C-alpha cells in the first residue's frame, strides 16, 4: 500500500500547511460543496483514499479526503466537504480566491492496484462517496484492467445525492445503482438502505474487491451483506473516520486499539479491523 514519505508531507515542516487557493466552487447538495484548490507555490501528489489536513486560517483544521486527486504535485486538489461544524462549515463557505492551508498527503490508500484483473464493487453512503470517487475515476480510466465494476450508492434523500451528473456519465461504462433512505415523488429510483444493493450487484465473490465508506452502521451492514455473498474479509476494504488533530500519528486522537487511523489507515481490511469495530466505544 502506498504511504506518504516524510519528504512528501513536509515541504516546510510537519505542522505547517501549504497555501492553496479556491479556484472552483460548486454546491452539490444543501450542505455539501466541492472545491477545486490550486497550490500557490507547491502542492503534493495524492493517491486514491489519502486525505489532507485542511486548515481555515484562524478557525481550525480537519481531515478531508481528496475526492479528485492530483497526479503531480502541481495539480489542483479537489475536495468534497459536508458542512457539519465550525471548520467544515468554514471550508464550505470559502469564496473563490480564498486561501486555505493544506498538509498532506496523509494516510494510506485504497489498494486499487491489487484489485487489478478482478471485479470491483464500490459501496458508499452519503459523503462516503467522496473518498471513493478516485477509485471510480481510476477504474474508468483503466477500464480494461478490471472485470465487472459497480458503484452502489445511498443517501438520505434524493436531494442529498452527490455528483448526480457524474453518476449518469459513469453509467455508460460501469454499473451504478443508487438508493435513498426516504423519498417522495417524482423520485422513481430505489428506496432503502445501501447494504440491500449488495445482494444483486454484479460481481464474482471470489474475484471481487469491495471498497466501502460511509457511516459505521452502514459499513457494518455492508460487510454482512458482502460476507453473505461469500466475499472474504481480506478483500473488504473500509475507510474509517476518527478524531484527528495532527494527521501524522503524533497526537494520539485517532487510536483504534492497536492502530493509529491517520498513520496506519484510514483504509483497512475487514480482516484487520472487524473485531476492533465490534467493540463498543473502543
Amino acid at each position, binding site marked *: 500500500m502506498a504511504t506518504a*514519505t516524510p519528504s512528501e508531507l513536509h515541504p516546510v*515542516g510537519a*505542522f505547517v500547511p501549504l497555501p492553496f487557493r479556491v479556484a472552483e466552487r460548486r454546491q452539490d447538495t444543501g450542505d455539501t460543496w466541492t472545491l477545486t484548490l490550486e497550490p500557490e507555490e507547491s502542492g503534493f501528489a495524492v493517491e486514491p483514499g489519502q486525505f489532507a489536513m485542511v486548515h481555515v486560517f484562524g478557525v481550525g483544521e480537519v481531515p478531508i479526503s481528496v475526492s479528485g486527486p492530483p497526479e503531480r504535485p502541481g495539480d489542483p486538489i479537489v475536495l468534497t466537504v459536508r458542512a457539519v461544524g465550525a471548520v467544515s462549515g468554514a471550508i464550505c463557505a470559502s469564496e473563490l480566491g480564498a486561501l486555505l492551508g493544506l498538509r498532506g498527503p496523509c494516510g494510506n490508500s485504497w489498494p486499487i492496484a491489487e484489485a487489478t484483473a478482478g471485479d470491483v464493487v464500490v459501496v458508499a453512503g452519503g459523503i462516503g462517496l467522496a473518498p471513493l470517487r478516485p477509485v471510480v475515476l481510476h477504474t474508468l480510466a483503466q477500464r480494461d484492467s478490471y472485470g465487472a465494476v459497480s458503484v452502489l450508492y445511498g443517501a438520505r434523500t434524493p436531494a442529498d445525492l452527490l455528483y448526480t451528473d457524474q453518476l449518469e456519465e459513469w453509467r455508460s461504462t460501469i454499473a451504478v445503482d443508487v438508493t435513498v433512505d426516504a423519498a417522495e415523488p417524482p423520485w422513481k429510483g430505489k428506496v432503502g438502505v445501501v447494504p440491500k444493493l449488495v445482494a444483486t450487484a454484479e460481481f464474482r465473490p471470489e474475484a471481487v474487491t469491495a471498497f466501502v465508506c460511509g457511516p459505521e452502521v452502514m459499513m457494518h451492514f455492508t460487510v454482512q451483506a458482502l460476507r453473505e455473498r461469500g466475499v472474504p474479509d481480506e478483500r473488504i476494504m473500509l475507510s474509517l473516520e476518527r478524531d484527528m488533530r495532527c494527521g501524522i500519528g503524533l497526537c494520539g486522537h485517532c*487510536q483504534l*486499539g492497536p492502530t493509529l487511523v491517520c498513520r496506519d489507515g484510514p483504509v483497512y481490511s475487514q480482516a484487520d479491523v472487524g473485531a476492533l469495530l465490534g467493540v463498543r466505544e473502543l
Partner: protein
Amino acid sequence: MESERSVVIAPEALDDLIGALRRRGFRVLGPTVRDGAIVYDELDSASELPIGVTDRQEPGSYRLEERDDEARFGYAVGPHSWKRFLFPPRITLWRAKAENGGRKIEEEPPNETQLAFIGVRSCELSAIAIQDRVFIGGKFVDRDYAARRDGAFLLAVNCGEPGANCFCASMDAGPRVRDPYDLALTEMLDGEHRFLVEVGSERGADVLAELPSVPASQSDVASALAVTNDAAARMTKAMPQVDLHALLAGSLEHPRWDDVASRCLSCTNCTLVCPTCFCSSVEDTSDLAGVETARERVWDSCFSLDYSYIHGGSIRASSRSRYRQWLTHKLGTWVDQFGTAGCVGCGRCITWCPVGIDITEEVAALSKQEEKSHAATA
C-alpha cells in the same frame, strides 16, 4: 559499572557541575522545592536543590518531609517530569499573516537553547526513550521535540529512595540507570556524604574533568551498588508479572472497567503527570481582523470527552471506555504502535489521582479474574 572510570565527588562539587554546564551554554534544569512539592525548574546553583527533603507518597497523596541528613536527591519523583521541557504543555507551531492577498506562513523557529537535566531517574530515562520512539522514532518526526531533545545533557541519579507508589523494578526501568546518560550519580549517605560519578559520554567526561574528584575505591563502588540494591529491595509495589499485552487485549469487556469507572473522575491528572503520555490537541488564535493567526499545540488527555469527538458524538462517551483506553494503551496497544510499552513504573499516576486509583491494582484485578475464567473453562 565501569569502575575504572568512576570517581567520587563531594556534595559541594554539584555547584561546580551546574557552573560547568551553564558555562557551556546549557539551560540547567533540576529539582527544587516549590509550593510543597519537588518540581523541575531552572537552577542557578546547587543550593536550590531539595536539600534534606523527602517526599512521602501514598495513593492520592503527596507531602514533603524533612530528612535527618543533607541528601540532595533523597526523594522519589514529583508531579513534574522532563516531558514538560521536551514536549512543553503549550507551544506555537506556526504563525500566518495576511499580506498582498496571500498569507505568509512561518514555522515557529525550533528551540535552540541546549537543555541540561539534573537528577534524571532511571524511570525517567526510560520515559524519555519511550517518547523518543513516539516523536522521533517513526515515519513522521516532531521537529520541535527533536530540537529540544537533540544534545540535551542528561545527568542521571540512581534512585536510593523509592516512593510507596514506585514499581520501576517490575517494569524493568530501574532503580539503577541503564539507558544512555552523560553522567550518572549515586548519592551515598553511609559514612561521608559523597557521590559516585559514572561517565556515559565524552562530553560527560569533559564536564567531570572540571570538578574536584578522587578516583572511586572498591568500597565506594560497593556502597553505590548497595544503594540501588537496597532501593529495589525496599520497593513494595509491583506490576503483576503477566503478559500485559495479552492480558489487556483479552480484557476489553472485563467487568473491572465498570468498577474503576465508578471511581474515576476523568480529571486527566494521571495523563498530565505521566512522563510518557504524549497526546496533544491544537488551538487556533486570531487577531480581531483575522490578519494574524497562530496555531498552538497543547497537551490533551484521553480522559476528556472532546478527545474522541467526531461529528455526531464522542466515540468514548463513557468514563469506562476512557479509563479502558488509557490503561489498554499504556500497557498493551502502545507496544503495537511504537514497539514498547508506555509505563515505566514511576507511580505518579497513583500519587496524583485524587481518588487514589492504582494502576498495579487495576491490572491485578484484571489478571485475577482472567485466571478465574481460565480455571473455569479448564
